[in-house]
Protein backbone atom coordinates (compact mmCIF):
# COMPACT_ATOMS: atom_id res chain seq x y z
CA UNK A 1 0.00 0.00 0.00
CA UNK A 2 1.54 3.32 -1.01
CA UNK A 3 1.58 6.63 0.87
CA UNK A 4 -1.27 8.01 -1.19
CA UNK A 5 -3.54 5.16 -0.23
CA UNK A 6 -2.58 5.44 3.42
CA UNK A 7 -3.36 9.17 3.34
CA UNK A 8 -6.75 8.50 1.74
CA UNK A 9 -7.38 5.82 4.33
CA UNK A 10 -6.58 8.18 7.22
CA UNK A 11 -8.72 10.99 5.75
CA UNK A 12 -11.56 8.51 5.26
CA UNK A 13 -11.18 7.33 8.84
CA UNK A 14 -11.28 10.87 10.15
CA UNK A 15 -14.41 11.53 8.12
CA UNK A 16 -16.01 8.30 9.34
CA UNK A 17 -15.25 9.18 12.95
CA UNK A 18 -16.54 12.74 12.45
CA UNK A 19 -19.71 11.38 10.88
CA UNK A 20 -20.34 9.14 13.88
CA UNK A 21 -19.76 12.03 16.27
CA UNK A 22 -22.03 14.19 14.13
CA UNK A 23 -24.82 11.60 14.39
CA UNK A 24 -24.55 11.58 18.19
CA UNK A 25 -24.31 15.36 18.47
CA UNK A 26 -27.33 15.77 16.18
CA UNK A 27 -29.27 13.28 18.25
CA UNK A 28 -28.43 15.17 21.45
CA UNK A 29 -29.33 18.52 19.86
CA UNK A 30 -32.68 17.30 18.50
CA UNK A 31 -33.52 15.52 21.74
CA UNK A 32 -32.67 18.62 23.81
CA UNK A 33 -34.80 20.78 21.52
CA UNK A 34 -37.68 18.36 21.91
CA UNK A 35 -37.26 18.39 25.71
CA UNK A 36 -37.21 22.17 25.75
CA UNK A 37 -40.42 22.28 23.72
CA UNK A 38 -42.01 19.73 26.02
CA UNK A 39 -41.03 21.78 29.08
CA UNK A 40 -42.45 24.95 27.53
CA UNK A 41 -45.67 23.12 26.65
CA UNK A 42 -45.88 21.66 30.17
CA UNK A 43 -45.45 25.09 31.75
CA UNK A 44 -48.08 26.51 29.41
CA UNK A 45 -50.51 23.70 30.27
CA UNK A 46 -49.85 24.23 33.97
CA UNK A 47 -50.51 27.97 33.67
CA UNK A 48 -53.68 27.32 31.68
CA UNK A 49 -54.86 24.83 34.28
CA UNK A 50 -54.23 27.35 37.06
CA UNK A 51 -56.13 30.01 35.11
CA UNK A 52 -59.02 27.63 34.49
CA UNK A 53 -59.21 26.75 38.18
CA UNK A 54 -59.09 30.41 39.12
CA UNK A 55 -61.87 31.14 36.64
CA UNK A 56 -63.97 28.29 38.03
CA UNK A 57 -63.33 29.55 41.55
CA UNK A 58 -64.45 33.07 40.66
CA UNK A 59 -67.48 31.71 38.78
CA UNK A 60 -68.48 29.63 41.78
CA UNK A 61 -68.21 32.60 44.11
CA UNK A 62 -70.18 34.76 41.70
CA UNK A 63 -72.90 32.16 41.26
CA UNK A 64 -73.24 31.78 45.03
CA UNK A 65 -73.47 35.52 45.55
CA UNK A 66 -76.11 35.58 42.85
CA UNK A 67 -78.00 32.78 44.55
CA UNK A 68 -77.94 34.58 47.90
CA UNK A 69 -79.07 37.80 46.22
CA UNK A 70 -81.86 35.91 44.49
CA UNK A 71 -82.82 34.26 47.78
CA UNK A 72 -83.01 37.65 49.46
CA UNK A 73 -84.86 39.18 46.54
CA UNK A 74 -87.36 36.38 45.97
CA UNK A 75 -87.95 35.15 49.48
CA UNK A 76 -87.05 37.80 52.04
CA UNK A 77 -88.02 40.99 50.15
CA UNK A 78 -91.70 40.05 49.57
CA UNK A 79 -92.01 39.01 53.21
CA UNK A 80 -90.57 42.29 54.45
CA UNK A 81 -92.81 44.22 52.02
CA UNK A 82 -95.85 42.33 53.25
CA UNK A 83 -94.80 42.91 56.81
CA UNK A 84 -94.42 46.61 56.09
CA UNK A 85 -97.91 46.73 54.53
CA UNK A 86 -99.42 44.96 57.51
CA UNK A 87 -97.63 47.25 59.92
CA UNK A 88 -98.98 50.32 58.07
CA UNK A 89 -102.44 48.81 58.12
CA UNK A 90 -102.14 48.01 61.83
CA UNK A 91 -100.83 51.50 62.54
CA UNK A 92 -104.04 52.94 61.14
CA UNK A 93 -106.08 50.37 63.02
CA UNK A 94 -104.23 51.27 66.19
CA UNK A 95 -105.09 54.96 65.65
CA UNK A 96 -108.71 53.94 65.34
CA UNK A 97 -108.37 51.63 68.33
CA UNK A 98 -109.45 48.70 66.18
CA UNK A 99 -106.32 46.56 66.53
CA UNK A 100 -106.79 43.21 68.22
CA UNK A 101 -104.23 40.76 69.53
CA UNK A 102 -105.05 38.20 66.78
CA UNK A 103 -104.14 40.76 64.10
CA UNK A 104 -100.53 40.54 65.21
CA UNK A 105 -100.33 36.78 64.56
CA UNK A 106 -99.81 37.36 60.85
CA UNK A 107 -96.96 39.77 61.52
CA UNK A 108 -95.35 37.22 63.79
CA UNK A 109 -95.76 34.61 61.06
CA UNK A 110 -94.00 36.95 58.59
CA UNK A 111 -91.16 37.55 61.05
CA UNK A 112 -90.82 33.78 61.55
CA UNK A 113 -90.68 33.24 57.78
CA UNK A 114 -88.10 36.01 57.40
CA UNK A 115 -86.01 34.46 60.15
CA UNK A 116 -86.24 31.07 58.48
CA UNK A 117 -85.16 32.51 55.15
CA UNK A 118 -82.32 34.39 56.83
CA UNK A 119 -81.17 31.13 58.39
CA UNK A 120 -81.10 29.53 54.94
CA UNK A 121 -79.02 32.41 53.62
CA UNK A 122 -76.75 32.23 56.64
CA UNK A 123 -76.39 28.50 56.19
CA UNK A 124 -75.35 29.06 52.59
CA UNK A 125 -72.84 31.68 53.62
CA UNK A 126 -71.27 29.73 56.45
CA UNK A 127 -72.14 26.14 57.23
CA UNK A 128 -71.68 26.38 61.01
CA UNK A 129 -72.78 22.86 61.72
CA UNK A 130 -70.08 21.66 59.37
CA UNK A 131 -67.46 23.79 61.12
CA UNK A 132 -68.53 22.59 64.53
CA UNK A 133 -69.14 18.89 63.88
CA UNK A 134 -67.20 17.94 60.78
CA UNK A 135 -68.32 16.85 57.33
CA UNK A 136 -69.63 13.38 58.19
CA UNK A 137 -71.90 14.59 60.98
CA UNK A 138 -73.08 17.57 58.93
CA UNK A 139 -74.12 15.36 56.02
CA UNK A 140 -75.80 12.81 58.27
CA UNK A 141 -77.63 15.53 60.20
CA UNK A 142 -78.77 17.16 56.96
CA UNK A 143 -80.08 13.89 55.59
CA UNK A 144 -81.82 12.80 58.82
CA UNK A 145 -83.69 16.11 59.01
CA UNK A 146 -85.22 15.79 55.54
CA UNK A 147 -89.02 15.81 55.92
CA UNK A 148 -91.10 12.84 54.63
CA UNK A 149 -88.01 10.91 53.47
CA UNK A 150 -86.92 7.64 55.01
CA UNK A 151 -83.12 7.71 55.28
CA UNK A 152 -80.56 5.05 56.10
CA UNK A 153 -76.86 5.70 56.50
CA UNK A 154 -73.76 3.55 56.25
CA UNK A 155 -70.65 5.41 57.35
CA UNK A 156 -67.22 3.79 57.00
CA UNK A 157 -64.06 5.51 58.13
CA UNK A 158 -61.67 2.83 59.37
CA UNK A 159 -58.64 5.10 59.66
CA UNK A 160 -60.58 7.96 61.27
CA UNK A 161 -59.40 10.23 58.48
CA UNK A 162 -60.27 13.86 59.05
CA UNK A 163 -61.12 15.91 55.97
CA UNK A 164 -59.39 19.29 55.56
CA UNK A 165 -61.72 22.26 56.16
CA UNK A 166 -61.45 23.74 52.65
CA UNK A 167 -62.25 20.41 51.03
CA UNK A 168 -64.99 19.75 53.57
CA UNK A 169 -66.87 22.92 52.59
CA UNK A 170 -66.71 21.99 48.91
CA UNK A 171 -67.85 18.42 49.62
CA UNK A 172 -70.67 19.73 51.81
CA UNK A 173 -71.94 22.10 49.14
CA UNK A 174 -71.69 19.44 46.43
CA UNK A 175 -73.70 17.08 48.64
CA UNK A 176 -76.32 19.76 49.37
CA UNK A 177 -76.69 20.52 45.69
CA UNK A 178 -77.01 16.86 44.77
CA UNK A 179 -79.57 16.21 47.50
CA UNK A 180 -81.58 19.34 46.69
CA UNK A 181 -81.75 18.38 43.02
CA UNK A 182 -82.64 14.83 43.97
CA UNK A 183 -85.54 15.98 46.17
CA UNK A 184 -86.72 18.53 43.63
CA UNK A 185 -86.71 16.36 40.49
CA UNK A 186 -86.65 12.67 41.39
CA UNK A 187 -89.35 12.43 44.11
CA UNK A 188 -87.66 9.79 46.22
CA UNK A 189 -89.32 8.18 49.27
CA UNK A 190 -86.19 6.53 50.63
CA UNK A 191 -82.54 7.56 50.43
CA UNK A 192 -79.59 5.44 51.50
CA UNK A 193 -76.26 7.16 52.05
CA UNK A 194 -72.95 5.31 51.85
CA UNK A 195 -70.08 7.46 53.00
CA UNK A 196 -66.69 5.78 52.78
CA UNK A 197 -63.66 7.77 53.89
CA UNK A 198 -60.26 6.20 53.31
CA UNK A 199 -56.78 7.61 53.74
CA UNK A 200 -56.66 8.75 50.10
CA UNK A 201 -60.21 9.46 49.01
CA UNK A 202 -63.81 10.08 49.93
CA UNK A 203 -66.75 8.27 48.36
CA UNK A 204 -70.33 9.44 48.81
CA UNK A 205 -73.04 7.28 47.28
CA UNK A 206 -76.72 8.12 47.38
CA UNK A 207 -79.02 5.21 46.51
CA UNK A 208 -82.69 6.16 46.19
CA UNK A 209 -86.03 4.95 44.83
CA UNK A 210 -86.72 8.06 42.78
CA UNK A 211 -86.64 8.30 38.99
CA UNK A 212 -82.91 8.99 38.79
CA UNK A 213 -80.77 10.15 35.89
CA UNK A 214 -77.89 8.74 33.86
CA UNK A 215 -74.53 10.34 33.11
CA UNK A 216 -75.80 11.27 29.65
CA UNK A 217 -78.86 12.95 31.18
CA UNK A 218 -76.61 14.89 33.52
CA UNK A 219 -74.36 15.99 30.65
CA UNK A 220 -77.37 17.12 28.61
CA UNK A 221 -78.86 18.98 31.57
CA UNK A 222 -75.53 20.68 32.30
CA UNK A 223 -75.30 21.89 28.72
CA UNK A 224 -78.87 23.11 28.60
CA UNK A 225 -79.00 24.55 32.10
CA UNK A 226 -78.47 28.21 32.79
CA UNK A 227 -79.19 27.81 36.50
CA UNK A 228 -76.69 28.29 39.26
CA UNK A 229 -77.01 24.87 40.89
CA UNK A 230 -75.47 22.71 38.20
CA UNK A 231 -72.79 25.31 37.41
CA UNK A 232 -71.77 25.42 41.04
CA UNK A 233 -71.90 21.61 41.27
CA UNK A 234 -69.67 21.17 38.22
CA UNK A 235 -67.26 23.91 39.28
CA UNK A 236 -66.84 22.54 42.78
CA UNK A 237 -66.36 19.01 41.46
CA UNK A 238 -63.58 20.29 39.20
CA UNK A 239 -61.99 22.29 42.02
CA UNK A 240 -61.76 19.24 44.29
CA UNK A 241 -60.63 17.06 41.36
CA UNK A 242 -63.62 14.83 41.95
CA UNK A 243 -65.93 12.79 39.75
CA UNK A 244 -69.68 12.28 39.58
CA UNK A 245 -71.45 9.18 38.39
CA UNK A 246 -75.21 8.90 37.81
CA UNK A 247 -76.83 5.50 37.30
CA UNK A 248 -80.42 4.30 37.12
CA UNK A 249 -79.83 0.57 36.94
CA UNK A 250 -80.19 -1.69 38.91
CA UNK A 251 -81.16 1.09 41.31
CA UNK A 252 -80.89 4.84 40.97
CA UNK A 253 -77.56 6.03 42.40
CA UNK A 254 -75.46 9.16 42.53
CA UNK A 255 -71.80 8.58 43.33
CA UNK A 256 -69.34 11.32 44.14
CA UNK A 257 -65.68 10.46 44.57
CA UNK A 258 -62.77 12.77 45.30
CA UNK A 259 -59.15 12.46 46.42
CA UNK A 260 -58.22 13.76 49.87
Amino acid at each position, binding site marked *: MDAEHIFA*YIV*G*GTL*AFSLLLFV*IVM*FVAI*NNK*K*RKEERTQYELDLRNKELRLLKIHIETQESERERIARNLHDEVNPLISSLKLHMSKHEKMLERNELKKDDLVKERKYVDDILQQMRIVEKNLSPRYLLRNGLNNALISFLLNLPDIKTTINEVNPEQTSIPHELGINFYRIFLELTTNLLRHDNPKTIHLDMITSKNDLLIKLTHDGTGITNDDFANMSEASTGLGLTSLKSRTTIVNGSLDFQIEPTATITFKAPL
Partner: protein
Amino acid sequence: MSFDTYIIIHYSTVILCGLAFIIVLFSNYHIDPISRWLVSGILLSSFLSDVISNILAKLIRNSYPAINLYHFFLGVLIVALYYFNDEKIRKSYLLKLIILTFIPFSIYQLFVSHGLYEFNLETYYFLTVFVIILSLWHFKNLLTNERAVDLKKYYFFWVNSALLIYFGFTFYLYLFNKSVILFEEELHLLVSSIQLYTNIIYCLIFITGVIWTRNISSHT
Protein backbone atom coordinates in the same frame (compact mmCIF):
# COMPACT_ATOMS: atom_id res chain seq x y z
CA MET B 1 4.63 2.70 15.00
CA SER B 2 6.93 0.50 17.06
CA PHE B 3 5.77 -2.74 18.55
CA ASP B 4 6.61 -1.45 22.09
CA THR B 5 4.22 1.51 21.66
CA TYR B 6 1.56 -0.87 20.48
CA ILE B 7 2.06 -3.04 23.58
CA ILE B 8 1.71 0.03 25.88
CA ILE B 9 -1.56 1.01 24.17
CA HIS B 10 -2.72 -2.57 24.35
CA TYR B 11 -2.09 -2.87 28.12
CA SER B 12 -3.72 0.53 28.72
CA THR B 13 -6.80 -0.71 26.90
CA VAL B 14 -6.87 -3.92 28.93
CA ILE B 15 -6.58 -2.01 32.23
CA LEU B 16 -9.23 0.50 31.17
CA CYS B 17 -11.60 -2.31 30.14
CA GLY B 18 -11.16 -3.95 33.57
CA LEU B 19 -11.69 -0.62 35.29
CA ALA B 20 -14.83 0.12 33.23
CA PHE B 21 -16.14 -3.35 34.06
CA ILE B 22 -15.69 -2.76 37.83
CA ILE B 23 -17.21 0.74 37.69
CA VAL B 24 -20.26 -0.38 35.71
CA LEU B 25 -20.77 -3.53 37.79
CA PHE B 26 -20.71 -1.69 41.11
CA SER B 27 -22.62 1.38 40.03
CA ASN B 28 -26.22 1.62 41.04
CA TYR B 29 -27.17 4.90 39.49
CA HIS B 30 -30.03 5.04 37.00
CA ILE B 31 -28.95 1.75 35.45
CA ASP B 32 -31.47 -1.04 35.60
CA PRO B 33 -30.01 -4.36 36.85
CA ILE B 34 -30.34 -6.25 33.55
CA SER B 35 -28.55 -3.54 31.58
CA ARG B 36 -25.87 -3.31 34.27
CA TRP B 37 -25.19 -7.04 34.07
CA LEU B 38 -25.18 -7.04 30.26
CA VAL B 39 -22.89 -4.01 29.94
CA SER B 40 -20.62 -5.52 32.60
CA GLY B 41 -20.67 -8.73 30.57
CA ILE B 42 -19.62 -6.85 27.42
CA LEU B 43 -16.76 -5.14 29.24
CA LEU B 44 -15.68 -8.33 30.98
CA SER B 45 -15.67 -10.29 27.73
CA SER B 46 -13.64 -7.51 26.14
CA PHE B 47 -11.17 -7.59 29.04
CA LEU B 48 -10.92 -11.38 29.02
CA SER B 49 -10.51 -11.58 25.24
CA ASP B 50 -7.63 -9.11 25.43
CA VAL B 51 -5.94 -11.04 28.24
CA ILE B 52 -6.53 -14.48 26.74
CA SER B 53 -5.55 -13.42 23.21
CA ASN B 54 -2.31 -12.07 24.67
CA ILE B 55 -1.62 -15.38 26.38
CA LEU B 56 -2.54 -17.36 23.26
CA ALA B 57 -0.32 -15.15 21.11
CA LYS B 58 2.60 -16.03 23.35
CA LEU B 59 1.75 -19.71 23.66
CA ILE B 60 0.59 -20.71 20.19
CA ARG B 61 1.30 -17.50 18.25
CA ASN B 62 -2.40 -17.27 17.32
CA SER B 63 -4.82 -15.12 19.24
CA TYR B 64 -7.80 -15.61 16.90
CA PRO B 65 -9.61 -18.29 18.93
CA ALA B 66 -10.12 -15.76 21.76
CA ILE B 67 -11.08 -12.94 19.36
CA ASN B 68 -13.51 -15.09 17.36
CA LEU B 69 -15.24 -16.38 20.47
CA TYR B 70 -15.33 -12.83 21.87
CA HIS B 71 -17.13 -11.55 18.78
CA PHE B 72 -19.69 -14.32 19.04
CA PHE B 73 -20.47 -13.61 22.73
CA LEU B 74 -20.36 -9.86 22.12
CA GLY B 75 -23.04 -10.21 19.44
CA VAL B 76 -25.28 -12.22 21.76
CA LEU B 77 -24.82 -9.74 24.63
CA ILE B 78 -25.50 -6.70 22.43
CA VAL B 79 -28.65 -8.26 20.98
CA ALA B 80 -29.83 -8.96 24.54
CA LEU B 81 -28.99 -5.39 25.55
CA TYR B 82 -31.19 -3.88 22.82
CA TYR B 83 -33.86 -6.47 23.46
CA PHE B 84 -34.22 -5.30 27.07
CA ASN B 85 -33.77 -1.57 26.45
CA ASP B 86 -35.88 -0.78 23.41
CA GLU B 87 -39.45 -1.98 23.21
CA LYS B 88 -39.84 -1.15 19.52
CA ILE B 89 -36.68 -3.08 18.67
CA ARG B 90 -37.82 -5.96 20.89
CA LYS B 91 -41.09 -6.25 18.96
CA SER B 92 -39.45 -5.93 15.56
CA TYR B 93 -38.94 -8.70 13.05
CA LEU B 94 -35.44 -7.42 12.32
CA LEU B 95 -34.18 -8.36 15.77
CA LYS B 96 -35.65 -11.84 15.43
CA LEU B 97 -34.01 -12.07 12.02
CA ILE B 98 -30.67 -10.96 13.48
CA ILE B 99 -30.92 -13.56 16.26
CA LEU B 100 -31.92 -16.31 13.84
CA THR B 101 -29.14 -15.53 11.38
CA PHE B 102 -26.24 -14.26 13.49
CA ILE B 103 -26.00 -17.22 15.86
CA PRO B 104 -26.06 -20.00 13.23
CA PHE B 105 -23.86 -17.95 10.90
CA SER B 106 -21.20 -17.23 13.50
CA ILE B 107 -21.23 -20.84 14.75
CA TYR B 108 -20.81 -22.00 11.15
CA GLN B 109 -17.92 -19.57 10.70
CA LEU B 110 -16.35 -20.59 14.01
CA PHE B 111 -16.41 -24.32 13.55
CA VAL B 112 -16.97 -25.10 9.86
CA SER B 113 -16.02 -22.36 7.43
CA HIS B 114 -12.99 -20.54 8.82
CA GLY B 115 -12.51 -22.35 12.07
CA LEU B 116 -11.31 -21.05 15.42
CA TYR B 117 -7.74 -20.38 14.31
CA GLU B 118 -8.57 -18.07 11.44
CA PHE B 119 -10.00 -14.57 11.83
CA ASN B 120 -13.79 -14.72 11.15
CA LEU B 121 -14.00 -11.43 9.32
CA GLU B 122 -17.50 -12.07 7.93
CA THR B 123 -18.83 -12.63 11.45
CA TYR B 124 -17.23 -9.37 12.49
CA TYR B 125 -18.81 -7.54 9.53
CA PHE B 126 -22.17 -9.03 10.37
CA LEU B 127 -21.75 -7.97 14.01
CA THR B 128 -20.71 -4.40 13.21
CA VAL B 129 -23.46 -3.90 10.64
CA PHE B 130 -26.24 -5.04 12.91
CA VAL B 131 -24.86 -3.08 15.88
CA ILE B 132 -24.74 0.09 13.75
CA ILE B 133 -28.31 -0.54 12.55
CA LEU B 134 -29.59 -1.21 16.09
CA SER B 135 -27.77 1.81 17.48
CA LEU B 136 -29.12 4.22 14.85
CA TRP B 137 -32.53 2.65 15.14
CA HIS B 138 -32.49 3.19 18.89
CA PHE B 139 -31.63 6.87 18.40
CA LYS B 140 -34.47 7.16 15.90
CA ASN B 141 -36.87 5.47 18.34
CA LEU B 142 -35.85 7.87 21.12
CA LEU B 143 -36.52 10.83 18.86
CA THR B 144 -39.88 9.54 17.65
CA ASN B 145 -41.07 8.60 21.12
CA GLU B 146 -43.92 10.67 22.47
CA ARG B 147 -41.69 12.14 25.18
CA ALA B 148 -38.06 13.16 24.83
CA VAL B 149 -35.65 11.26 27.01
CA ASP B 150 -33.69 12.94 29.81
CA LEU B 151 -30.14 12.12 28.73
CA LYS B 152 -28.75 13.02 32.13
CA LYS B 153 -30.63 10.10 33.63
CA TYR B 154 -30.53 7.69 30.73
CA TYR B 155 -27.42 5.53 30.92
CA PHE B 156 -28.26 3.52 27.83
CA PHE B 157 -27.68 6.64 25.73
CA TRP B 158 -23.99 6.39 26.65
CA VAL B 159 -23.93 2.67 25.92
CA ASN B 160 -25.61 3.21 22.56
CA SER B 161 -23.21 6.03 21.67
CA ALA B 162 -20.19 3.95 22.70
CA LEU B 163 -21.37 1.02 20.57
CA LEU B 164 -22.06 3.27 17.58
CA ILE B 165 -18.65 4.94 17.73
CA TYR B 166 -16.73 1.73 18.30
CA PHE B 167 -18.46 -0.45 15.74
CA GLY B 168 -18.99 2.34 13.22
CA PHE B 169 -15.32 3.21 13.22
CA THR B 170 -13.91 -0.32 13.32
CA PHE B 171 -16.26 -1.26 10.50
CA TYR B 172 -14.55 1.39 8.40
CA LEU B 173 -11.10 0.21 9.52
CA TYR B 174 -11.74 -3.35 8.42
CA LEU B 175 -13.99 -2.78 5.43
CA PHE B 176 -11.42 -1.08 3.22
CA ASN B 177 -8.38 -2.98 4.32
CA LYS B 178 -9.37 -6.60 4.53
CA SER B 179 -6.43 -7.97 2.60
CA VAL B 180 -3.89 -5.42 3.81
CA ILE B 181 -4.70 -5.80 7.50
CA LEU B 182 -4.38 -9.52 7.35
CA PHE B 183 -1.19 -9.69 5.33
CA GLU B 184 0.76 -6.46 5.77
CA GLU B 185 2.36 -6.57 9.19
CA GLU B 186 3.12 -2.86 9.65
CA LEU B 187 -0.30 -1.63 8.57
CA HIS B 188 -1.90 -4.37 10.58
CA LEU B 189 -0.14 -2.95 13.66
CA LEU B 190 -1.25 0.59 12.81
CA VAL B 191 -4.88 -0.36 12.25
CA SER B 192 -4.85 -2.49 15.41
CA SER B 193 -3.52 0.40 17.45
CA ILE B 194 -6.20 2.72 16.02
CA GLN B 195 -8.75 0.09 17.00
CA LEU B 196 -7.26 0.08 20.50
CA TYR B 197 -7.64 3.85 20.70
CA THR B 198 -11.28 3.41 19.68
CA ASN B 199 -11.55 0.78 22.38
CA ILE B 200 -10.19 3.28 24.92
CA ILE B 201 -12.79 5.85 23.82
CA TYR B 202 -15.45 3.15 24.03
CA CYS B 203 -14.49 2.27 27.65
CA LEU B 204 -14.20 5.95 28.59
CA ILE B 205 -17.75 6.59 27.33
CA PHE B 206 -19.04 3.75 29.52
CA ILE B 207 -17.24 5.20 32.56
CA THR B 208 -18.30 8.78 31.77
CA GLY B 209 -21.90 7.63 31.51
CA VAL B 210 -21.77 6.06 34.97
CA ILE B 211 -20.07 9.11 36.52
CA TRP B 212 -22.43 11.52 34.79
CA THR B 213 -25.58 9.75 35.91
CA ARG B 214 -24.12 9.33 39.42
CA ASN B 215 -23.44 13.06 39.70
CA ILE B 216 -26.97 13.86 38.64
CA SER B 217 -28.45 11.42 41.14
CA SER B 218 -26.38 12.82 44.02
CA HIS B 219 -27.61 16.33 43.24
CA THR B 220 -31.28 15.42 43.27
